């Protein structure tokens, strides 16, 4: 594939998983020249050395401000670099900010050639946050389960209850106090820690 058909893309992201998901998507779509930078030290030097056509950076990355410098210090860059977003791109910038990613392109690269890259980037970033949310939910559900089990154990020991009775007691207390069962379990753990 010639350079004309496959622009050189740099992904600046400290999350290796998200970067891998994006990189894979770009490769599948035929963009072969993809480089991932995860190390933020001497970021600009690496970017200048790679000389990319497109730079994608996640919005959680404080080094985004470092990239902004490239538009001011033209002496150090071989080609002027401009933001992808211009006045007419309100929808694109909105979608990319919502997804948590920002794109920069080298001036002169045609907009219609960038559109599919950015669209892909947005959808992969959204997919990643969905995965992340699910993972967080699963983790906290697991965590809550552990807390409930430990609280059950304490009630069984202290009050001489069976496992079922201990659970029913926590559940009815939760309903009465309009709290989650996990919160009741946590208070039992806290109280028992204090009373030790």
């Amino acid at each position, binding site marked *: 594939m010639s350079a004309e058909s496959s622009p050189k893309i740099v992904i600046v992201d*400290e999350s290796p998983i998200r970067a891998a998901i994006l990189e894979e998507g770009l490769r599948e779509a035929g963009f072969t020249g993809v480089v991932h930078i995860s190390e*933020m*030290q*001497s970021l*600009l030097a690496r970017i200048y050395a790679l000389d990319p056509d497109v730079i994608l950076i996640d*919005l*959680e*990355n*404080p*080094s*985004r*401000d*470092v*990239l*902004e*410098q490239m*538009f*001011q*210090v033209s*002496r150090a860059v071989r080609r002027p670099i401009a*933001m992808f*977003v*211009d*006045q007419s791109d*309100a929808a694109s*910038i*909105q979608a990319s*900010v919502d997804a948590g990613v*920002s794109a920069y392109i080298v001036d002169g690269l045609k907009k219609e050639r960038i559109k599919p890259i950015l669209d892909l980037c947005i959808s992969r970033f959204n997919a990643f946050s969905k995965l992340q949310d699910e993972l967080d939910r699963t983790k906290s559900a697991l965590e809550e389960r552990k807390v409930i089990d430990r609280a059950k154990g304490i009630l069984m020991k202290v009050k001489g209850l069976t496992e079922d009775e201990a659970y029913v007691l926590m559940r009815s207390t939760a309903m009465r106090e309009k709290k989650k069962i996990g919160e009741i379990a946590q208070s039992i753990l806290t109280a028992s820690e204090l009373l030790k």
Partner: protein
Amino acid sequence: MTTPLHIGFIPLVDAAALIVAVDKGFAAAEGLDVTLVREVSWSNVRDKLNIGLFDAAHLLAPVAIASSLGLGHVKVPIVAPFNLGLNGNAITVSPSLHAAIMGEIEGDAIDPMATALALARVVAIRRKNGAEPLTFGMTFPFSTHNYQLRFWMAAGGVDPDEDVRLVVLPPPYMVDSLANGQVDAFCVGAPWNSVAVDLGVGYILHFVSDILVRAAEKVLAVRQDWSDKNPEVLAALIRAASRAAQFIEQPENRIEAARILAKPEPPPNSRLLRLRE
């Protein structure tokens, strides 16, 4: 009826008026339900204000001007009706650059002109010896920090574009970068200069207020179109910020204000905790 507002900020001491306005209930008393959103870069604050995800923002004063003029980015007219801070920046240098400047100084080290002239001599010596140009960290292309560094060194005859390197660094990375030699000096706001001094990796060469008096640092920024549509909400927000600023200004409230600012956990990428460990 309360008005919900989303306000973006960068965790710096000069966001205090906004943080205290929310924490002490000055905003709520004005009928504002403010959600403060912590950001990691000025680019994010600017973009989210521009596209309307934020109603208002804690913003570098020069970014408000650049955004209104369309410099370096999309043109979005910004109104900055309230100053969140005057001055507050300092120039901190590494121990070795400090020693070099002190070795060349003629006159008083608290005189910025004397240090600027000494810096010019240090730069000339380094060039003669074939050393790498000195690197100065600052926070954003459109920042007071950038302009203040330039103003100071240019006064001594150092060309900021030719004789040294000026690089953008996110404030939480400043101290780390000074410690590991990535930069020889930086200009940044509180608390990062004090952090460098506490850790023994830097000397505060000048408070920028010694170089330029009453420089507008951060502003409360809103979009012009938003301000045209919501003049009363904006007035309420200004009143809340103003009450918060008056509260902070009372010496007896300083400790409480500091506690309020210290409340939120550091941003995920903060290197501060790692340094302190």
